[in-house]
């Protein structure tokens, strides 16, 4: 299945690692990258990705604000948030902002593929590492 993905994180190694994980799947491609929220919004508008994988803490516009804006600008784009936070509070904020998926960075390598598959089916996906 063809899936077009935007990756936004200010840490190039994370973008590169996420790309490596995603592109191991046939038909999945990273169509754009961004290192801050503003750039991510711009790229998303240009490319209309199926999924936006976004870091919660980025300069110029953080991931939560970006998620809100993406929901308005591109309602078809599913949002998957990456974060260092394992707190429930942050999770709730992310879901309220319109994210469908929420992954803790330590689990990205193992959970990213099932997370993308889930949000593509419009199902929520939350890292098992979240404090409940």
């Amino acid at each position, binding site marked *: 299945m063809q899936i077009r993905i935007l990756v936004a994180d200010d840490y190039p190694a994370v973008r590169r*690692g996420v790309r490596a994980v995603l592109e191991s799947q046939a038909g999945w491609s990273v169509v754009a990258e961004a290192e801050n929220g503003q750039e991510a919004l711009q790229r998303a508008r240009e490319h209309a990705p199926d999924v936006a994988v976004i870091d919660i803490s980025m300069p110029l516009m953080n991931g939560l604000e970006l998620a809100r804006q993406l929901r308005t600008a591109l309602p078809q784009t599913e949002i998957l948030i990456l974060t260092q936070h394992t707190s429930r509070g942050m999770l709730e904020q992310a879901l309220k902002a319109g994210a469908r998926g929420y992954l803790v*960075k330590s689990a990205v390598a193992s959970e990213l593929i099932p997370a993308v598959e889930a949000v593509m089916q419009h199902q929520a996906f939350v890292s098992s590492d979240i404090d409940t």
Partner: protein
Amino acid sequence: MVTARILVADDHEVVRKGIRAILEAHSGWEVCGEAVDGRDAVEKAEALKPDVVIIDIGMPLLNGLDATRQILKQRAATKVLVLTMHESEQVVQQVLEAGARGYLLKSDASRDLLNAVEELKRNSTKEVAVALDLSVKTAETHRSNIMRKLDIHSISELVLYAVRNNIVQVMPPLNVLSLNERQS
């Protein structure tokens, strides 16, 4: 021909994957191992004897700076590059005191990571200046100021504290002006 064997230490698998992909795009460089925490980094460094260790400053079990000290105690020839989230006079000082050859901000471009490893391999002050697009004299001026400030007495202890195109931006906490004011 393998020209550099590199150990990558970071507690996030996705970051290790990304750093590996960035480094292995350079022909001849090989990531010979990955470590998931500070203790693992020290053990792997001893077992694998890498040329270069790239290590995250904040890791579980043993932080990056303490791991750096132990790695260098095992094998002083190892070149360690620390990845940090912030750069401040304090961080720079701590990184250098631990014996690392330099540091990079995590947000620095992947090109900077490649340049940093190249400089560590070459181990010459002239090369540092070339990589930073500076005249040799400017780099040496900055370097001697930093050395005086940080009480480091040999150039070999301070090869590279940041790899970026505009070294002046790194300098604000250590600039020549505040140094002179303090001395007078």
